[in-house]
């Protein structure tokens, strides 16, 4: 482990400074200090030097200092002889204290270093874990793993990610491996076990190779080109080294599990997408076979009749055939619009051309459109005063409302007016279309929003051309509502009939121009 500690030379220098200062004081104040004080000063400097010096320097240094002290200050001065008995005790005590202090300091330093390593490792694991969790694609975090490993070992690292789920390709991050390294990486990927120095396998190799393991396999491997062991590291004993390696493995495994998680997610997403695409394809096929054929057959019949029998038909008959062709073609156009729009909304993320729109205008344009097709139809429209603008794709909401109105005209009672209303609820705008038709049974209320489902009324009157071919209409309504973050509901009405509602989430409209009246229709 690298640790943020001063380099060896610097630490030795600091110890030397401490000793030198002590000796300078001793020599300068020689005359004015008693021997006991001098001895204390020396013990102090020995303790201070012990802060920085490793035991193997501090112990002999302590002995040497006390020898020198004896020579310089203990009478008879200038010799190593000791006259007085208590001076000898003093020297022995000094030596013992200075050694004990040096040993204690060394041990303390080792414990502190160990703690620091531990904290550093935990911090590294946490950082990498956070980065992996935050990443959409953990493979993009390969460089981060590489950095973490490199910081922990001063090794030059290469990370190799295995190919996996769709969209996850094999990738090499860092210096490309040479042939031997490549073989080692592949071996590690294949059997999911570490190799290289300290791993128990291929100990003589220059690099350590660690697998990126998940629960169910190996998702890559990291190659650490360890620097030549410096002298200081020689002192590191096996447990420390095993610990360091366990940490490196933990870093790698964190990446491995993240890759595993993403692969599982990707596989699931791909399966979901395939199922969705299949469902969409079925819907489109059903729409074409189910709903498009009938109007086409009618058009073809009418057109063929005009072509073959034109001269023999009366003007009124020709007129009726032409009307049929126009009506059925219009119907076919709507079906095609609905089917295409549903396919567009259901295939991936739809692009909305959202703008601030007024429900009043949306309702107005649907009314204008419907009136062209059904000139005699009555409508009851009620829009709450002061409705806020709503952020939506006007073309889609118009299409939705148009389908609801069309649905009401198909299934509603012929004589009753179709009711359109808009109101503000707690946090939603509700746009509703109500009819006086046979209603939708409780069991069908969810089903009719699925493509190709209709209420029983349609099934009961198969010959009624007006009542066929809703097909994708309500399914499209639901898709449009969902694309806007809203939803559709259908409810029975008290005196018979159904009420279809679009709930749109409310957003805060931008401020209007200064001279405008409040939003909504003025009184």
């Amino acid at each position, binding site marked *: 482990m690298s640790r943020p500690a001063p380099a060896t030379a610097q630490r030795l220098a600091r110890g030397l400074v401490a000793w030198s200062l002590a000796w300078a004081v001793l020599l300068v104040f020689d005359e004015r200090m008693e021997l006991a004080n001098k001895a204390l000063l020396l013990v102090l400097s020995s303790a201070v030097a012990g802060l920085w010096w490793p035991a193997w320097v501090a112990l002999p240094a302590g002995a040497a200092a006390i020898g020198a002290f004896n020579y310089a200050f203990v009478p008879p001065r200038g010799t190593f002889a000791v006259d007085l008995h208590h001076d000898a005790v003093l020297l022995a005590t000094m030596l013992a204290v200075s050694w004990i202090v040096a040993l204690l300091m060394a041990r303390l330093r080792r414990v502190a270093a160990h703690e620091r390593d531990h904290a550093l490792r935990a911090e590294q694991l946490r950082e990498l874990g956070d980065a992996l969790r935050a990443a959409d694609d953990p493979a993009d975090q390969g460089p981060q793993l590489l950095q973490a490993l490199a910081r922990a070992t001063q090794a030059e690292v290469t990370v190799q990610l295995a190919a996996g789920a769709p969209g996850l390709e094999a990738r090499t991050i860092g210096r490309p491996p040479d042939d031997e390294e490549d073989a080692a990486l592949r071996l590690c990927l294949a059997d999911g076990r570490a190799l290289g120095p300290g791993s128990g396998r291929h100990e003589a190799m220059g690099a350590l190779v660690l697998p990126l393991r998940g629960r169910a396999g190996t998702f890559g491997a990291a190659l650490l080109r360890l620097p030549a062991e410096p002298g200081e590291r020689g002192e590191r004993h096996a447990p420390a080294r095993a610990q360091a390696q366990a940490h490196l493995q933990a870093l790698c495994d964190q990446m491995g599990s993240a890759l595993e998680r993403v692969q599982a997610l990707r596989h699931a997403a791909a399966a979901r997408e395939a199922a969705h695409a299949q469902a969409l394809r079925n819907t489109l096929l059903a729409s074409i076979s189910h709903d498009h054929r009938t109007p086409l057959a009618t058009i073809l019949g009418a057109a063929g009749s005009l072509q073959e029998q034109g001269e023999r038909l009366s003007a009124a008959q020709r007129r009726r055939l032409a009307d049929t062709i126009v009506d059925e073609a219009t119907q076919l156009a709507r079906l095609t619009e609905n089917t295409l729009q549903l396919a567009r909304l259901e295939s991936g993320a739809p692009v909305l051309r959202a703008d601030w729109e007024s429900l*009043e*205008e949306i309702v*107005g344009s649907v009314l*204008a459109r419907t009136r062209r097709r059904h000139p005699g139809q009555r409508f009851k429209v009620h829009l709450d005063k002061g409705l806020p*603008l709503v952020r939506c794709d006007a073309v889609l909401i118009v299409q939705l409302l148009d389908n609801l109105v069309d649905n009401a005209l198909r299934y509603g009672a012929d004589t009753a007016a179709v009711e359109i209303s808009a109101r503000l609820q707690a946090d939603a705008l509700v746009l509703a279309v109500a009819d006086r038709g046979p209603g939708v049974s409780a069991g069908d209320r969810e089903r009719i929003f699925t493509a190709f489902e209709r209420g029983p009324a349609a099934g009961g009157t198969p010959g009624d051309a007006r009542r066929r071919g809703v097909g994708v209409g309500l399914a499209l309504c639901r898709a449009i509502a969902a694309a806007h973050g809203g939803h559709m509901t259908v409810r029975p009405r008290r005196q018979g009939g159904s009420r279809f509602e679009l709930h749109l989430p409310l957003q805060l409209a931008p401020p209007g121009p200064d001279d*405008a*009246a409040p939003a909504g229709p003025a009184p």
Partner: protein
Amino acid sequence: MTLSVLLVEDDRDLRSTLGAALEVEGYHVACSASLADARARLNHADALPALVLLDLGLPDGDGESLLAELRRRGPVPIIVISARDGEGPTIRLLDAGADDYLAKPFTLGELLARMRVALRHRGTVAPPATTRYRHAALAVDLAGRRVQRAGQEVRLTPTEYRLLARLVRQAGQVVTHRQLLADVWGPEFIGHTHYLRLYMAQLRAKLEADPADPRLLLTEPGVGYRLVEPDPD
């Protein structure tokens, strides 16, 4: 006088059907299947056609270059024929100076109505530059700055009046959001569509019998607004 129409449409069947129908209506119709062909035809003809029907999504482009060329050469009315999905190119062409648009599928009646309005505005058949507008109960006199409904003077704020006047000048034709915002509020207000919503609501409240079911100030969802075609004099 026979009016000549240039029909640029790549679908052969639609081209021949429309061409025949317009001939029956008394127009002289020239057809092109591509922008390049249309350009060549324009360069070789002695005079510009009276009207151009331009389909979007031709094999060689969206027609913006043809539009620019036509605009350089004279005030030819241009009606864009667009598919319903994707208003983007339609709006671009309208903003660039096309007169009106028609979404496929459309009926012959709708096409003829649009052509009639476009020809009137470009001054080919009737006096240009509408300054008076009358439809049902609504009468607008731009010269006198007067707006009347069922004979009663209607008081409009200056902004409401500018908005109405802008629509009157192109009565019967669609005016895009962008054009309205730029002409009524100024170019820096393009994008403030919510201004338009508020003022249209105010105008409708003052001019329409039922603002929720407008008969005069029509909305073209996603594109712009259209003041309904005036009554024939």
